[in-house]
C-alpha cells in the first residue's frame, strides 16, 4: 500500500517524518488511546454482565479517533461524529463518568436517557454533535456548520467522521458535493474499518479506495494508515490547516480494522476470517505507538504500566458512579420536544405520571438490545 501515509511502522520504527510537537502531546495521545481501550473494555464488561444494554467495540480503531482529535483546536473546531469514536471525547477531556452516564442512560446523562448507549452528545468541553443512528446524516450537517463559520469569517474547521459503509448513504454524497461547491472548511474522515456489520468493504464500493471518491467532488483525498496515530495526526492537521486557510475540504480515508464485533449484539466469528484478525492484531495501534515512545525515550516500562492500570481504575470508578445514579424522572420524556411544551404534551405528561405513580411498579432499568 504505497499510497498510504505512514509515519511509524508496525514495530514502531520511524518510516516518515515525525510531527514536531512537544513530548506532552505524544503522551496525551498515548494516554487517550489507552483510556479509549479501557473505556471500551469496561463497556463490553458492563454489557456482558447485563448492566448496560448495548455497546459498540472501539478496539483497533483508537489511533483513528485520537490522532484526528489531537489535530483539532476545540476552542473553534467542531466534531460531527459517528458512533465508533470514543477517543475523540476522551482526548478532549470529556470525563468518563459523563460518558458512562450516557451508557447507563441515567438521570445525569446529557441526553436524559433518551438515546441508546453510545449515542453521545456534548456541548462542553467541545462541540461534539449528538450522534444519530441513521447513518450519514451528520455529513451534510458538518458542511452546514462549516459554512456558517465561513460566513461569519471565523477560521474554525469541522471534522466529520463516518464509516466505510456510510459512504454508500446519500448524506456522504450530498455532503461532499456541497463542500466542494461551497469550499467549506470541512474535514471528512472515513473510518475504513473494512466492515459494515457483516458486509465487507468490497461489497460497498467498486472504487479502488474510499479516498478516491473525493476526486469526483473536487475534494482532495488522502489514504492514511489508521493504526498509526502520528500519520492520523499529520493528515488531519494538514486538512485542518487547509480548511483554516480557506482552501476548502479534504477527504481522509483511515485504513484500519474493526477488531471486535459490529456491536455487542453481533458475532463476527460467523463472517470474519480469523487469519485476518491475526494479521491486524499484529498491527495493533497501541502496541505500535508504545514501542515508538519507548524507543524515543518518552515513556518507560514502569510509567507505561502505571498509565494502563490507572486507565482501568478510572473507567471502573466512572462506571460505578454512573451505575449508582437513578433513571431520569418520568416527566423528562415529555421535555425538549419543543422549547415550550405544548398543551397536548403537558396533558400527556400528567396522564403518564398519574397512571404510573398509582401503580407502584418499578422500571426495567437495564435491557438487551439485539443489534
Amino acid at each position, binding site marked *: 500500500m504505497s499510497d498510504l501515509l505512514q509515519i511509524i511502522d508496525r514495530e514502531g520504527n520511524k518510516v516518515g517524518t515525525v510531527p514536531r510537537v512537544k513530548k506532552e502531546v505524544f503522551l496525551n495521545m498515548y494516554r487517550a488511546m489507552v483510556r479509549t481501550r479501557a473505556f471500551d473494555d469496561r463497556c463490553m464488561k458492563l454489557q456482558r454482565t447485563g448492566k448496560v*444494554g*448495548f455497546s459498540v467495540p472501539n478496539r483497533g480503531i483508537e489511533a483513528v479517533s485520537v490522532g484526528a482529535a489531537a489535530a483539532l483546536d476545540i476552542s473553534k473546531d467542531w466534531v460531527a461524529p459517528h458512533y465508533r469514536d470514543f477517543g475523540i471525547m476522551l482526548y478532549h477531556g470529556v470525563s468518563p463518568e459523563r460518558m458512562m452516564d450516557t451508557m447507563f*442512560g*441515567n438521570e445525569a*446523562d446529557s441526553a436524559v*436517557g*433518551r*438515546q*441508546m448507549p453510545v*449515542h453521545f452528545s456534548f456541548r462542553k468541553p467541545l462541540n461534539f454533535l449528538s450522534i*444519530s*443512528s*441513521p*447513518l450519514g446524516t451528520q455529513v451534510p450537517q458538518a458542511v452546514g456548520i462549516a459554512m456558517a463559520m465561513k460566513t461569519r469569517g471565523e477560521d474554525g474547521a469541522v471534522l466529520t467522521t463516518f464509516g466505510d*459503509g*456510510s459512504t*454508500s*448513504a*446519500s448524506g456522504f454524497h450530498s455532503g461532499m458535493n456541497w463542500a466542494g461547491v461551497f469550499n467549506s472548511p470541512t474535514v471528512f474522515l472515513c473510518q475504513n474499518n473494512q466492515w*459494515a*456489520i*457483516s*458486509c465487507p468493504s468490497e*461489497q*460497498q*464500493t467498486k472504487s479502488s479506495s474510499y479516498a478516491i471518491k473525493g476526486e469526483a467532488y473536487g475534494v482532495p483525498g488522502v489514504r492514511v494508515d489508521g493504526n498509526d496515530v502520528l500519520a492520523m495526526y499529520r493528515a488531519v492537521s494538514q486538512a485542518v490547516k487547509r480548511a483554516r486557510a480557506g482552501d476548502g475540504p479534504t477527504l481522509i480515508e483511515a485504513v484500519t480494522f474493526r477488531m471486535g464485533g459490529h456491536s455487542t*449484539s*453481533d458475532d463476527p466469528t*460467523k*463472517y470474519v476470517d480469523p487469519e485476518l484478525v491475526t494479521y491486524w492484531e499484529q498491527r495493533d495501534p497501541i502496541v505500535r505507538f508504545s514501542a515508538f515512545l519507548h524507543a524515543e525515550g518518552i515513556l518507560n516500562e514502569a510509567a507505561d504500566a502505571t498509565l494502563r492500570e490507572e486507565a482501568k481504575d478510572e473507567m471502573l470508578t466512572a462506571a460505578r458512579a454512573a451505575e449508582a445514579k437513578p*433513571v*431520569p424522572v*418520568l416527566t*423528562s*420524556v*415529555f421535555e425538549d*420536544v419543543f422549547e415550550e411544551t405544548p398543551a*397536548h*404534551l403537558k396533558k*400527556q405528561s400528567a396522564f*403518564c405520571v398519574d*397512571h*404510573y405513580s398509582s*401503580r407502584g411498579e418499578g*422500571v*426495567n*432499568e437495564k*435491557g*438487551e*438490545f*439485539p*443489534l
Partner: protein
Amino acid sequence: MSELTLVQAVNDGLRVAMKEDESVLVLGQDVGPKGGVFLATDGLHAEFGEDRCFDTPLSEDGIVGVGIGMAMNGMKPVCEIQFQDFIFPAFDQIVSEAAKMRYRSGGQYTVPMVIRTPYGGGIRGGLYHSQSGEAYFAHTPGLKVVIPSNPYDAKGLLIAAIQDPDPVLFMEPKALYRAFRQEVPDGLYTVPLSTTATVVEGEDCVVYCWGAMVPVCKTAAERVSESRGKSIRVVDLRTLMPLDEEAVIQATRECGRVVVVQEAPRFCGYASEISAILAENAVDSLEAPIQRVTGFDTPFPNTLENYYIPDARRVVDAIEQVLDY
C-alpha cells in the same frame, strides 16, 4: 406443521415463496451470509445462492429503487430495511415512485414488490430502533400496509404480499419476533390481505389493534372479562391499507363500544383514522365515545421506554372507561 416463532415463520415464508417462484429474490443489508440482523433471512443465501439473496450497499434508497426497477422488469423483489427507522432515505422511492407507478403510467408499469421491515419498541432501541411509522405509509395512496401479530399470519400474509401485484410494506413487530411459538403449516398457504381477524370473541366492547399491541390487548380483554364479567372482543386489523372497513363498522355495530390501540404517537396516528371511519359510519351504534390508547407525542425514549409503550393496564383503563360511560 412446525412450532415456529414469528421470525422463523417469516423465514419459512420467504423460503417457500422463493421455492415456489423463481422470480422472488431477497435483498438488503446483511441479509446474505449473516442471515439478517434478526435472522429473518437465515439460510436463504446458502440455499438459493447469491443471485437470489444478496447483501447490498448501505443505501435504503438504493435498495428500494433497485427493487422497483427489478419489479418493473419481471422480478418479485423482497427488500429488507434493517429497521423501519432507517426507511426514510427510501421514502421518496416508496412514496413518489413505487406507490404511484401504476397510476401515473396508466397501468403500463407496475411494482409487485414487498418491503419487509421490523418496527416497534420493547427492545431498548431508543429513538431509532423503536418507531412505529405505519401512519406515514398508510397515508400513501398506492401502497399496501400489512402488519402481522403471530407466526401463522406472518407466514401466510407474507406469501400473500409477495404474490400481490402491488407494492406492499410488510411491517414486522420485532418485539414479537421470539415472544412465543405457534403451529405453522409447512409449505405454501396464504392469509388474504385486507381481512381482519377476531382474536378474542366478545360483544360488550371491541378493541382494534395490530402488530405488537395484539397480545397486550388480549391480556387486557381477559382481565376485564374476569374482573367485570363482560366479554371484550379483540380484532387484529392485520392489513391497514386497504382496510376491511366493512368488518370494522360491523364489529362496532355489534359491540357498541370501541377502544383503538396503537404503539405509535397519538396525533394523526392510524387509530385516528379508525375513529374517523366509525364517527362517520357507526356513530348511531356507539354507546360511548371512542377511546384511543397510544404512544405519546414525543420521540421514542430509551431508559423509560416501558412507560411509553401502551401496556395492558392502560388498555384495561380505556375499556373500563367505555364500559362505564
